Structure formats: C-alpha cells, structure tokens
C-alpha cells in the first residue's frame, strides 16, 4: 500500500486518532492481488473460514471485474462479511491456510474481501431478497453478529423475523465493541441495513426482561433465538473499584464509538487490567484519547495472553507498556473520590490449572504502588444470567446449554447461539464464529420446520 502513512497520534484532533487505520486496497492493488490468487481447487482457505466463504470464487470475481458477484459470494456465506474482513484474525484463519504460505506469500484475503464489500457499500447494492413468506415467525434476542446472521438466513428462507435489540442501534459488538480505528460504525450499520432490507423488523432500545417479557416473546413467536452475547466486565473484587476514574473496558470502548470523544484522558496515566483483545482495545483507545502513559497489567505472562498476535503488535506500536505477572491489589483514591494510584502485587506462575495454563501465585510482600489517573477493567465479561433464567433455560454459570446439532436449549422452542453459548472448550468467540452459528441455528430451525411441514 504505497500511499499509506503511519498514523501518528495527535492531540490536536482526537477524532483523527479514531479513523480507520488500515487503508483499503486501490483498484490496481485489488486487481494485481486477485490475479495472484491461484484459484485452488478444494482450497484450504475455504475450510479455514468458519463461515466457509468460497474465497477463490470471490477473488476470481474481483479479477474478472464481477464485483457484484464477488460481494454476493462473500455476504451469502457471511452476513457480517464486511466487518469480518476487518476484524478476523486472518493469519490464523484463511490467510494462514493459503497454500502460497509454502511458496511465496499468502493472498491478502481479508483486504480483498474488504475491497469487494466496500464496493457493494459504496455503490448501494441490494444483495439479497427476502424469501417467499412461509407463515412462520421468529424472535431474535440480540442484534449482534449471531443474531443478525440468524435473522438474515431466516428472512431469506421466508420467516417473519423480529430482532429485539437493547441498544439504540443493532450490530452488537461490531457497532459498539470493536474500536473505530479497526471497524468504523458505518460498516456495521450497512450490514444491519442489509438485514433490514429483507423485511426484518429490528426493535431497538427494547431490552427483553425490561421492555418486554421473555414469556410474551415465547408465546407470540414460533421460534425464539437467544443471541444476547455477554454483559459487562465483572468486578475485580478489590478495594476502590467504585472510585471515579475506574472504567469497564466495554463501556469505555463503546463511548469512543458513539461520536463525541472525551478530552479528559489527555496527558493522563492509564492502566488496563487484563490482556485479552478487549484489554488491547481499552489500551489503544486510551492512547488515542491522548493518554500520556498506558500500561497493561496482567497477572500471567505473554505466553498466556489471549489477545491476537497482531493486536499485541498493534498495541506495542501504539506505545502501550506491558507489565506481566502483575495483579491489582487495591485502587487508591483521593479525598474527592478520584483514582490516584493502584497498588499492585507481583505474581509467579505455579502449577497448571484445568485449562492447562499455569496458575498465577502472588509473591508475598512484593506490593508496590503505581500512580495512575484511570483504571480500565478488561478481565472478561459477565453473563446475562437474569435473562437466561427468565427464559428458564438450563445453563452452566451463564453459558446456555444447547444441543450441539440443533442449537436447541432446554426449552424446545428456544434456540441459542453466539457468545451466550460459548464457554470454555466451546470454541473461540470470534465474530466470524458467531456469524456461522447464526446461520447454523437458522438452518437447524428450517430443517425442523420442513420436517414438521412434511409430516403434516
């Protein structure tokens, strides 16, 4: 990408810091790169894509100048394919599987996918049509990647679909949870719009359990799909957590996505607790909000960190510091109730736990205090327990139990997909995996319906 300049952080205009970092391919780059694709038969990249996009076909269509066909190929397999082109860990998925890794260098599949979907977005294409109405209705709880994906598939199969979305806009993680400089909101909105064009009714600002009861939904729809994802970041369980200047990373990122950027972090010292992708987001957002120093504190080491390698690299380039084997012990505030520091304790790795990762153990009397102005918590997410219980579904600490084939919960009318069913050992909670689960649930419902219909 010849014209790409390394984006420097500016304090003069914080909004500039939140512009998309990666430039899209130029037409010429896209043509050259698409012609480099071997168009493998039974290609490994297809198998490496959780949604099974026919990658060589969509790339061939870019090469032939059939961009509409290319975008349809992508989006038919992945209803959030424009977002995924930006946020997928492609070097672990499609690009990692590209056969050219063994001879030259892999095809830039993510960038080509973005090129084709950007074209569809820019030219205002309508890619799909709703199916002929089959008289069945489905309620989708949650308009994130899994919910949108399920809705899109069901609408194409002729179901009357209603999405219940608690936020102001649908899109879930793609709209609110992924930093703007990776994924601008307009991309997510376009994907939502594609689903709406299939006559899917999206009821935003409608939280199930608050604005409408679970019972009402279960009674009024033929099928219910629970795709609510996860909730807020849990408490650290340390003193000082309620001080001003302590943030939930999810809320922290969300605030940077909805327009107005806060100037209050300019020149401040921020620590982020945790080392997953959300922690990286919290840290890089802090840098882009003008923080003078940003540290990630993690009680384990680089080895156990769950953030993607490219996110780790990105954070390092943003100047984020990493403090391994460091756990928070207490957040310290001043008389006005504002954060002034954090007391940390050094850790060491002990015996392996059930998941194989070594347990961090505190080193006695290793406490020290870091003076900080803000603390961002990113140690995972809690589950929507109350809602799950309102639906009366069997679950394991908030992870809804489903039949692995049919995605059916303990209530035969209720299905679940996405983060709400992802627990340890149930696969990676990637956007692309959620999208596939959404498709799978829709197809499972349709299969069931078709069987019922044939029986009648």
């Amino acid at each position: 990408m010849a014209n790409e300049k390394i984006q420097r952080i500016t304090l003069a205009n914080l909004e500039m810091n939140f512009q998309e970092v990666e430039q899209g391919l130029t037409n010429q780059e896209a043509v050259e790169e698409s012609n480099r694709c071997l168009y493998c038969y039974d290609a490994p990249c297809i198998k490496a894509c959780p949604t099974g996009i026919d990658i060589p076909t969509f790339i061939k269509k870019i090469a032939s100048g059939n961009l509409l066909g290319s975008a349809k190929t992508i989006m038919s397999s992945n209803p959030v394919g424009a977002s995924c082109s930006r946020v997928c860990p492609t070097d672990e998925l499609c690009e990692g599987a590209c056969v050219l890794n063994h001879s030259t260098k892999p095809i830039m599949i993510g960038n080509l996918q973005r090129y084709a979907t950007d074209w569809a977005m820019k030219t205002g294409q309508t890619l799909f049509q709703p199916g002929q109405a089959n008289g069945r209705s489905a309620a989708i709880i949650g308009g994130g990647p899994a919910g949108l994906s399920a809705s899109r598939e069901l609408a194409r199969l002729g179901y009357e679909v209603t999405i219940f979305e608690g936020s102001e806009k649908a899109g879930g993680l793609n709209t609110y949870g992924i930093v703007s400089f990776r994924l601008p909101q307009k991309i997510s909105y376009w994907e939502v719009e594609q689903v709406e064009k299939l006559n899917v009714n999206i009821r935003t600002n409608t939280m199930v359990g608050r604005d409408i009861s679970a019972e009402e939904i279960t009674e009024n729809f033929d099928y219910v799909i629970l795709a609510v994802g996860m909730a807020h970041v849990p408490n650290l369980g340390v003193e000082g957590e309620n001080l001003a200047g302590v943030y939930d990373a999810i809320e922290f990122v969300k605030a940077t996505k909805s327009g107005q950027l806060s100037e209050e972090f300019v020149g401040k010292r921020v620590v982020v607790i945790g080392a997953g992708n959300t922690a990286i987001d919290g840290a890089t957002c802090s840098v882009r909000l003008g923080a003078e120093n940003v540290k990630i504190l993690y009680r384990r080491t680089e080895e156990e960190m769950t953030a993607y390698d490219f996110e780790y690299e990105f954070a390092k380039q943003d100047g984020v510091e990493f403090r391994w084997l460091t756990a928070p012990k207490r957040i310290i505030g001043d008389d006005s109730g504002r954060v002034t520091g954090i007391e940390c304790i050094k850790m060491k790795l002990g015996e392996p736990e059930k998941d194989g990762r070594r347990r961090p153990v505190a080193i006695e009397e290793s406490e020290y205090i870091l003076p900080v102005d803000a603390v961002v918590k990113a140690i995972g997410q809690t589950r929507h327990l109350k809602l799950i219980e309102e639906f009366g579904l069997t679950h394991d600490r908030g992870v809804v139990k489903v039949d692995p084939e049919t995605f059916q919960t303990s209530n035969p009318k209720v299905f679940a997909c996405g983060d709400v069913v992802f627990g340890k050992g149930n696969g990676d909670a990637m956007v692309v995996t959620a999208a596939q689960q959404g498709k799978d649930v829709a197809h499972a419902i349709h299969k069931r319906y078709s069987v019922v219909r044939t029986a009648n």
Partner: protein
Amino acid sequence: MADLRINLAGIQSPNPFWLASAPPTNSGYQVQRAFEAGWGGAVWKTLGDPILNVSSRFAAVSFNGQRVAGFNNIELITDRPLDVNLKEIYETKKRFPNHAIIASLMVEPKQEKWHEIVKRVEDVGVDGLELNFGCPHGMAERGMGAASGQVPALVERQTYWAKEVANTPVIVKLTPNITDITATAEAACNGGADAISMINTINSLMGVDLDSWNTIPHVAGKGAHGGYCGPAVKPIALNMVAECARHPHINVPISGIGGISNWKDAVEFMLMGATGVQICTAAMHHGFRIVEDMIDGLSNYLDSKGIASVSDIIGKSVPKYSDWGNLDLNYNIVAKINTDVCINCNKCHIACEDTSHQCIDRLTDANGMSFLKVREEDCVGCNLCSIVCPVDGAIDMVEAVREMPPMTWNERQAALSGAAILKADVTK
C-alpha cells in the same frame, strides 16, 4: 436476471458458453461434469478414424510470472473408437436434453466418408455438427484439418458434402493459418454452412530449451509445430470474428473461439458479432468451475446495462469496425499526465523520447520536485505513454479541440480526385 439463452443457427443452449472441441470434451464423463458445472454446450472432441497420440503434448507460455498466457498442443483428434464416443454422446444428451452437444468431425476429403460420419453422429441425437477444417498439426499432414481448411474450394466442397445428408445445423470451424480468413468463411457459406466458428489454433513453436536445445515440448528429442491458443491469441481471434461479421457475403452466425477466459472476453466477442463462444484453455487451466463466474458476471453485466437478453448485444460493435480508410483523419487525442497520481518512473518519457514523438518533458517545479508534462502541440495521440504507464489513472488520453471537420482518407482521396477531374474539365 437477464435471459442468457442463445440460438446459434437453430442450436439452442441455456447460455452462450460452450466448451470447444478439445481435451476437455474427450468423454461423456467430462462433458457431463461440465454440464453439471453450468456449461451451456460442448463441442465433442473431434470424431474420425481413431489416431495414435504422442507423449508430451502440451506446453504453455508464462509471461512475467502469469502462467498460461499462451498454450499449445500437438494432441490429435479423438483416440477413442467412434462407437464408444457415440454411445457416450447418446447417454450425455439423454441426461442433459437442454444442453447443446455438437459433434466435431474430421474425415478424409471424400464424399462418402462425410456422408457416413454425419449419419452416424446424427443417429445418436447431436444438436449440430462442427466440421474441423482447422487442426494445424498432424492431421493436416494427412490432408485433413487445416490442410483442407486452407483451400477455399476444399472447404466449400466438403461443407457441401456434409450438408447433403445433414439434418442438424452444420458449423464450419476455420483455421487462422491463412492470409484472409474471410475467403474460407465465404467458401463455407457457399458450401451451405449454417454457421462458422473461429479460430482454431495457430501454428506455433513454444520454445527451445537453452540447455538441451530441444524444442518445447519435445517427443524423444524431436518436436513439431503445435496449435497455439489461450489468452495471447484473443486479439487475433477477435479480429477474425469481426472481419467475418462485417463481411457483406458472410451472413451466417459465428461461434467465437480464441483466448476467451472470462465473461468480459465473451461480451467482446459477442459485441463483435459472435452469437456464442467456445472456450478451452481457461477450462484446462482452472477446471470447469470457471463457468460459474462467466455466467454470473455476464448476467450482472447485462442487468447493470438494463439489457434483457444476451442476444441483444450480438454484433452491436460491428458497425464500429471498418477499414483504415474510413477513419477520421482530423480526430485528435493528446496525453495528459496527472502529476498527483504519477509515481515518476519516467517510463512514459523514455518510451516517447526514444520510440515515439519526443513530446514528454521532464521538468522541475518551484520546490525542486521533478514532474512530467506533455507538450500537447507535439503529441500525436499514439497512446504509447498510457500503455507503458504502470499506474491506473496517471495518464489520460483526452480528446483535443478539433481544428478541422471530420474527413477520412477515402473522403480526402475522393475529394482530391474530384478536384482533379474538375480541374481537367476546366482545362479541357
């Protein structure tokens, strides 16, 4: 979605994409796989008296890292017994009644031979026949293929013999290894051909190995010319199709062949007068599945243009193709370099300076940055700079202000001779 069906001289197919008579259409297994993949028709690999093939048959040109820019072969017609082919044609047609199956035929230039084979293949239900007067290697040495196809009288006579007994449409496939393809095309029409197809492959030697000094390919250290095809031959084929399409005495449908690799190539051939296209090399490079994008891309193209049927584009560019003498001498275009896009490789400058009209100047701006500028008054609008430019949008060829009204060479000569006659009259 636009209607992609075509009707070529009475042969109907669900789309204009046929597999050409070649290795991909060697057997029922292959043709059935092709139809499953979406191909609209197939011209079965040429039937005749079974032959013997050699080992080492194909070679390709890789151009700057792009594989199969050009392709050649020394494989002959079918090496399978006629009755086996006929049985498979019958079975394939039964399974795919709506797809076009055309039998390619090549026999000795004898009336009874043509009568016999035409009857036998029509008995198994083919939709049409294609007479192979094009194959340039091997068979030509035995008086068939291109050896027949290079002699207009032989083309006419053999077409006539086939037509004497044929009940299905007869397509005559022409060789490009001839000075003027319209001569043999016209001969085919005179013989009663219902359609013509072109081009067959071009005589070629793919290369010589620098170490062994063997030809590429070679058969036990010896080589013979092959037939050249693939993307590199497209411009040659397109011209031959266009020349036939605009010829006043050639009024039969054309099946376009030669380097067609994608839907865009197909659109070009159809705009230049082809009713449908035949494809081989692209399928040999990528498999039958490439037809999916050909269909999808063509359909999206027609939809985007608001064209209801692919048949509506046939020949639409033919009136735009003419003789040099009918081109406007007073039409001017000049190069414009967009310095904001230009990457300063100076390739346009050196191409123009050394090999064209010396009108691209290398200048320096107030900040000491070099830039390129066209002296428009000296630019002849040759396109060379925009051709060698490696960056899209850096050089535009734009229409210059017209100084004189349109006038072609032919008009000019007519005017001059008119003036001369007038002058002669006056002096008389």
